C-alpha cells in the first residue's frame, strides 16, 4: 500500500506532502488530463493492467482505484 501511494505521488508529480488511500485524487491540484495519462502508464508498468478511463473517472478514492487494479489483475 505504501508502495502504491509512492507510485501515485510520482505519477502525479506530488512532491510536497503525503497522500492517503482515502483521498479523492481527482481533487488534487496536480490532477489533470495530462497527469491522468501518467497514471495510466504507471498502472500499466507496475501492475500490467489497463484501467479504463471511465473507471478512473468514477473512482472516488485511491482505495477504489487500488481495488480496481486488483480486480483486473
Amino acid at each position, binding site marked *: 500500500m505504501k508502495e502504491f501511494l509512492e507510485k501515485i505521488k510520482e505519477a502525479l508529480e506530488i512532491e510536497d506532502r503525503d497522500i492517503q488511500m482515502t483521498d479523492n485524487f481527482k481533487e488534487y491540484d496536480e490532477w489533470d*488530463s*495530462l497527469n*491522468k*495519462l*501518467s497514471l*495510466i*502508464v504507471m498502472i*500499466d*508498468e507496475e501492475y500490467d493492467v*489497463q*484501467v*479504463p*478511463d471511465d473507471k*478512473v473517472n468514477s473512482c472516488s478514492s485511491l482505495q477504489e482505484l487500488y481495488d480496481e487494479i486488483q480486480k483486473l489483475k
Partner: protein
Amino acid sequence: MPLLKFNNVGIRGFSAAVPATVINNYEYTEFFKSEDVKEVVDKIGVKERRFVTHEQCSSDLCYAAANKLLDDLNVSREDIDLLVFVSQTPDYRMPATAISLQDRLGLNKDTIAFDISLGCSGFIYGLSTVYAYMQTGNFKKALLLNGETRSKVYSPKDRKTAFLFGDGGTAVLIENDEKYGESFFSMNSDGALSDLIKIEAGGYRNMSTCETVEERVVDEYGNIRSAEHGVMKGGDVFNFVLKEVPKDFKKLISFGNIDTNSTDYFVFHQANDFMNSYLAKKLKVSIDKVPSSIAKFGNTSSVSIPLTIVSELRGKLEGNKSLFLSGFGVGMSWGCAYIKIADSYISHIVEI
C-alpha cells in the same frame, strides 16, 4: 491470423512535403494560458507543427512529394501503374483523390488508382496493399501517397487535441527486386473502440446541418468544439496502445522470426513523445533506434511513419538495413511491418 509475407518487393525511395507555415506550439496561446500551454507542450513533445493554408489540401502535399521523388530518381511517369492514396482528409467526398492525382502527376490512364480511408495505421495498410499488388509481378512501379491535413479536423479550442496534430504528405516508390528479400506484415481492427477517435457529424449517418457546425462547450474543462470536429478520448487511446501494440509486435516477431537486436530502426506512428518513449521502454527497444519527428511535425496520422523516415533517416538508409514499422490509432486499427531496405533514396523535404 492476418499475417502477410511478401518476397522481393521493396521501397526504392521516400519523399515528403510539408506546409511552409510553422506553428510554434509554445506560442499557440490564443485560447489558453501560456503556462498551461507550456505544460502540455513539454509533456507531448510537439514543439512545432505545420499547417496548410485554407486552400491547400492533402493532395497538394502528396503531389509535391511525388513529383520531387520521381524527378530525383529520374523515374518516368509511364512506369507508374498503381497509385494508392491513404488519407482521412481527402479533397472531396467524391471522387477519390487518387484519381485526380493520376491526372495531375501525368500518369497513364491504365493506372490503377484508389483511396484507402485509414488514419494512424494507414501507412502499414497502404504499404501491404501495394506490396500485394506488386507481388503479382504485373506492375512496373507503384506510388503510395499518404496525405493528411489534420489541422482542418480538430478544434483549436479543445485542449485535448489542439496541440497535437499537424499536416504533411509523403510519397513512397515501390518496385520489385530480389535485393529486397522478405517482408512481413500484421494488421488488426477493433470496431468496438470506434468512439475513441471520431468525427461525429458531417458524414452520412449524421449529415451536416447548421447545428453540427455550431461550436459549444463540451466538458467541465471548458473545451469547445463542434460535432464536426475530431474528438479523442486520450486516456483510453493510451490504454488501447499499451494493451494491443506490444502483443502485435510479438506476433510479427514470431511470424517473421525477426531478430530485433539486429533490426536497424523502429519507426513508430508519432502519436506523442510521452507515449512513444514509454512504448519503446515497454517493447525493450533502445531509444537510439527509435527516430522521432514529433517535435518538428506533431502527429500527422498516417503520414507520420514515412515523414519520420524522410526527416530523421536521410543518409542513414544506405546499404542493407531493416526497419520495424508500427502504426496504431483511429478505428481502432493497428498493424506493424518488418521491411528490408536496400539503398533506398530519401529526398530532401519539400515545403509548399
